[in-house]
């Protein structure tokens, strides 16, 4: 009798197909959270049998939170993470590869912008983005007008423009020509952009070997540190605080900064002057373009199995769909990760998005294995030049040795 009852109960449960509940994690960024809430409503309307529960955590604690929960079998089924953390997360066995039948490699590579290929690990994709970001130069139109100059196209123009805008001298500046900040986005510019523009490559193809300890690397380091030491365009940490260069720019005290498309929102909200965006400059000598691309991806954790896995795949397809990409652009301001959308003329010629979007075809991403450690290696190397008068050649070797040590530790 009892057995029969259990059987009957089990049958009813299967028949009514109880809804699957997925947990989705991302970090706490107001517009992202509210946009995601809207998207979840839409998704649930399309898939009545799936419920999504969104949980968010402060950015500073996010990585830590994810890393300590998932290995313990807790936390999200679908998770949003920085692409740079992927190798570590895959290594931990904590993400599962995207099912090849739902996300064929060929299709991914033809529909997404090239930099997404950084999330291919051991020939498999583990995660996909909704949107991507590249770097560009934000400039203060009012300061440019006062100095009677036009926004720069080459690095040579960039230096000349900065010198016309800067006021004061080290260590007491009142206005900076360029909001130099090694630990902001600048170290990416040196490694991924300047090294290439001077004719080098930062890493070997498989990402295991540092290759910027070369002539090109030394010239890139020299060029960047000269902006402060020789041309005196500015000084790091001009404003105290977390986003020094950006805050100073928003306060109208800086002519130009190099920042990512994710900064558009806060600059739009804060700046009380006219500002514009131009692409990262090129060298007059060769005109080689370059950019650093980065992105946040959505992956499926090992916690999602069976019904949950099937639902996660559906949700991930929805998150990376063109429609979601469009919503994300309108609501958050991040540029679409799909080739088709980011290739539209309207977006490419957009005064603010344009410079970011048009950099997508030649943007490279660093394959981080330890983002914090690799950043520190560069920031310290740059600091030895600008604070202690070390030679750029020594500094590049120092960064290379330190970063190679980190890579070796991971690929051992």
């Amino acid at each position: 009798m009892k057995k029969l009852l259990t059987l009957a109960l089990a049958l009813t449960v299967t028949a009514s197909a109880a809804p699957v509940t997925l947990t989705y994690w991302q970090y706490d960024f107001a517009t992202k959270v509210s946009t995601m809430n809207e998207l979840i409503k839409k998704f649930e309307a399309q898939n009545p049998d799936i419920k999504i529960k969104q949980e968010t955590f402060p950015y500073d604690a996010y990585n830590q939170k994810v890393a300590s929960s998932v290995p313990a079998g807790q936390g999200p089924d679908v998770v949003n993470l920085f692409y740079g953390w992927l190798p570590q997360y895959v290594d931990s066995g904590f993400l599962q590869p995207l099912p090849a039948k739902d996300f064929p490699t060929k299709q991914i590579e033809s529909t997404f912008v090239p930099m997404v290929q950084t999330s291919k690990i051991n020939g498999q994709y583990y995660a996909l983005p909704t949107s991507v970001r590249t770097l560009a130069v934000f400039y203060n139109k009012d300061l440019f007008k006062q100095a009677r100059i036009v926004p720069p196209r080459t690095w040579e123009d960039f230096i000349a423009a900065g010198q016309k805008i800067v006021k004061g001298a080290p260590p007491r500046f009142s206005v900076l020509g360029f909001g130099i900040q090694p630990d902001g986005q600048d170290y990416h510019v040196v490694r991924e952009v300047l090294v290439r523009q001077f004719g080098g490559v930062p890493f070997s193809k498989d990402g295991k070997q540092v290759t910027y300890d070369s002539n090109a690397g030394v010239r890139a380091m020299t060029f960047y540190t000269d902006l402060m030491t020789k041309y005196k365009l500015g000084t790091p940490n001009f404003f105290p605080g977390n986003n020094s260069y950006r805050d100073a720019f928003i306060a109208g005290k800086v002519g130009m900064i190099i920042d990512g498309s994710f900064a558009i929102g806060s600059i739009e909200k804060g700046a009380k002057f006219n500002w514009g965006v131009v692409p990262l400059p090129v060298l007059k000598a060769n005109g080689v373009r370059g950019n650093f691309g980065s992105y946040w991806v959505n992956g499926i954790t090992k916690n999602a199995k069976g019904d949950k896995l099937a639902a996660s795949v559906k949700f991930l397809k929805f998150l990376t769909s063109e429609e979601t990409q469009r919503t994300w652009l309108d609501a958050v301001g991040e540029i679409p990760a799909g080739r088709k959308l980011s290739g539209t003329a309207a977006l490419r010629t957009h005064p603010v998005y344009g410079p970011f979007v048009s950099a997508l075809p030649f943007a490279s991403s660093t394959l981080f294995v330890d983002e914090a450690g690799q950043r520190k290696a560069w920031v310290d190397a740059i600091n030895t030049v600008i604070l202690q008068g070390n030679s750029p050649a020594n500094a590049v070797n120092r960064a290379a040795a330190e970063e190679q040590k980190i890579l070796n530790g991971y690929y051992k």
Partner: protein
Amino acid sequence: MPLLFFLIVRFIPTFMSLRLSLFDWNILREQQPFVGLENYRTLVADEKFGQSLRNTALYTLFGVPLQIGLGLALALMLSRVVALRGLYRALYFAPYVTPIVAAAWVWQWVFSPQFGPVNTVLGWLQLPPQPFLTSPDQALATTAGLVVWQNLGFQVVLFLAGLAAIPRSYYEAAEIDGATGTQSFWRITLPLLNPTIVFSVVTGTISYLQLFTQVVNLNFTDQGGPLGSTLTVAVYIYQMAFGRFQMGYASAITVVLFGIILAITLLQLRFLTRRYDT
């Protein structure tokens, strides 16, 4: 019951971290291989760890005597003040209860090379502007300044209580015997303040050896200061554990720091405590 509590809350975590320090324990890896003393061997050769030890020693060697000396001087002054006594005490105590993060934020602006009032004052005095927190040579002293400033209020209150506990009759007797003010300070005040001083030295030393929040918040984007100039052992532990997920290595540093604190505290208690007859 208290013993059980102590065991669960104190001892088990301590031994867990001792055990963890023998593994190559990275949160982001499935396997956590046993490596024996490997982490400790790496530590010996780790320049950054050496730097953090040196910095921590510098903070302690300058910070503790400075805050005790200044605290005692201020307490002696305040104990004589009669008017507005409460106000003065509140003023000196205020930094101690100010949230560290807020204080660090203000400190950054005060010592800003570009906009800080300190550099403005230096300018009036015809002195060259200083880079303070942005320079590897000055960042540690500037950070220590914040810590001393914050702890001073607590020191003052401690010494005021200590001074109040000295019976007036001793001073009266000394006066009758014809002792000068300096004499009664060295012969009465200082010896009778010994328990207070020992307490200050021991707790002060421990707090400097564990220095963390000020360091992290003063150079927020480049934590540990330019080129690691303000890095402390505690900050290094945090960076290794939660920035780079090397739990085993971080545990090894924790064990070393624990050993250092234990050794120093025992030495201090042994040599500073004096017996005296009342």
